[in-house]
């Protein structure tokens, strides 16, 4: 964009100039201050535009009295609940007859349909292995190790799209007008628009990290559902039946790149990942190691490298017993 050729009106039409004047965007402020410092030939046009903008924006804002929105909402819900209470329209008897006839006519077709279209497919990723699954609607699921995904072999056009996940997976869902996409984890139902997100269900805790798009997470009871924004993480703890939302850790899906991002991560969490995704049984000769916290990045591609780096980071020696897949962590190298 060649701002040196901008006229006053061009500047008025520029959203970043408006953001600068409104003081809403520190990045825009830095940009325009630097731009002005270069003494561009049209700095007068810029000053005219911002001068005008400040006056255009000087209008007094109108706000409702505090509490107005809340009071009004109570009236709205009260009215809605009253209309909800009216009975549902009864299905007319001849509809039943029509439905019965239709069923008889399609009976033979139905058998064919059941045989060919109702089978399910289950993809399983073994310990230490990842699997990439393309679903019937072209959505792509990357299954992390020790995880499985089950879904119907055939999805009707614009019909419901549903998958059942155990373990951890990253979803890149194709947007489809009208047709929702649901992920069931046994504890949580996740309803999706075209979107990318990570789901991790391990040890009775399901964590959903939303990268882009929008999803709704539902733990089965009416009060336990949340709408997520990109960058947020939702965690459901089965035992406590607790659903919480907080700013997410962008490293949630780093396993896709064969990495684990550590932000003040406890050794206990790393040990769980080693057990959950690689099938090791980890033993600590000194349990205080479990509470240590570390930062950095762990490469997951090669188990030997991973263990070597981990032993250096923690200053421990790691003994591998291949016979029963046990790792023994001992202090000092």
């Amino acid at each position, binding site marked *: 964009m060649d701002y040196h050729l901008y006229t*006053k*009106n061009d500047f*008025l039409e520029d*959203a970043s100039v*408006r953001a600068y*004047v409104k003081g809403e965007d520190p990045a825009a402020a830095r940009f325009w201050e630097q731009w002005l410092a270069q003494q561009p030939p049209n700095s*007068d046009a810029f*000053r*005219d535009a911002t*001068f*005008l*903008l*400040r*006056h*255009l*924006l*000087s*209008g*007094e*804002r*109108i*706000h*409702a009295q505090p509490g*107005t*929105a809340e009071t*009004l*909402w109570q*009236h*709205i*819900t009260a*009215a*809605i609940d009253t*209309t909800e209470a009216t009975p549902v329209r009864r299905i007319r008897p001849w509809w039943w007859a029509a439905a019965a006839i239709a069923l008889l006519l399609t009976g033979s077709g139905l058998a064919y349909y059941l045989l060919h279209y109702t089978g399910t497919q289950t993809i399983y990723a073994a310990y230490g292995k990842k699997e990439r699954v393309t679903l019937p609607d072209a959505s792509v699921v990357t299954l992390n190790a020790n995880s499985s995904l089950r879904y119907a072999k055939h999805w009707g056009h614009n019909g419901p799209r549903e998958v059942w996940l155990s373990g951890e997976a990253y979803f890149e869902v194709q947007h489809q*007008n009208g047709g929702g996409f649901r992920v069931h984890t046994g504890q949580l139902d996740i*309803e999706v*628009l075209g979107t990318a997100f990570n789901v991790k269900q391990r040890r009775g805790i399901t964590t959903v990290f939303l990268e882009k*798009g*929008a999803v*709704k997470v539902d733990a089965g009871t009416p009060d336990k*559902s949340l*709408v997520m*924004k*990109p960058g947020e993480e939702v965690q459901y703890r089965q035992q406590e039946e607790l659903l919480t939302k907080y700013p997410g850790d962008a490293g949630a899906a780093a396993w896709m790149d064969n990495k684990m991002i550590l932000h003040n991560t406890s050794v206990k969490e790393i040990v769980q990942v080693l057990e959950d995704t690689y099938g090791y049984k980890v033993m600590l000769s000194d349990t205080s190691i479990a509470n240590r916290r570390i930062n950095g990045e762990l490469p997951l591609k090669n188990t030997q490298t991973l263990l070597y780096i981990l032993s250096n980071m923690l200053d421990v020696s790691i003994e591998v017993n291949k016979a029963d897949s046990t790792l023994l962590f001992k202090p000092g190298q």
Partner: protein
Amino acid sequence: MNDLAAEPVTWWKFFLEGDKDALSALYRFYFPVLYEYGVRLHQQEELIKDCIQDLFIKLWTNRRNLQAAHDPRRYLLIALRGAIYNKLKQAGNRKVVPYEQHHDFRLTFSAESAYIKKESASLQSQQLLNALEKMSPRQKEIIYLRFYEEMEYEDISAVMGITVKAAYKLYARALETLKDILHISLPALLLLLSQHKS
């Protein structure tokens, strides 16, 4: 911009499916916008509150006939405008004129605003504020939707019930009336700036 709109669009989708929490989220998100626009169009705050209330009850009861909205704000502003008009007609207000001819839009420019406080002493600033006050209600409305609500011309035209071309024209004419003031006192402004620097 799409990212910003993503969440309300999702709420809208879930609301259409019968999710009352999503309607509540939409209401909480858009109430300030609707209230402010409504009161600017029509000064009686009680009437605007009634209109917003009716609007959301109607949204819920009619949700099965509604479609996905790519911009809920645009949809709601248009719906509110219609609700105000119907309410006034219902109340037997004889002075009701079609919205397109309505002749009021409350927008008072103030030298006390944080945006211009430091410049309020300048003559040019005073002149500009006076000229802004003299803009027609329709001009004030387009300025409001464009600069306060950051709406695109296409959406502005839909909300104001005019063509996109007419929206551009209305906007250009509003600025035209201000041009002279800026132009005349530009040397004065430069003088001020140079004094400020030294």
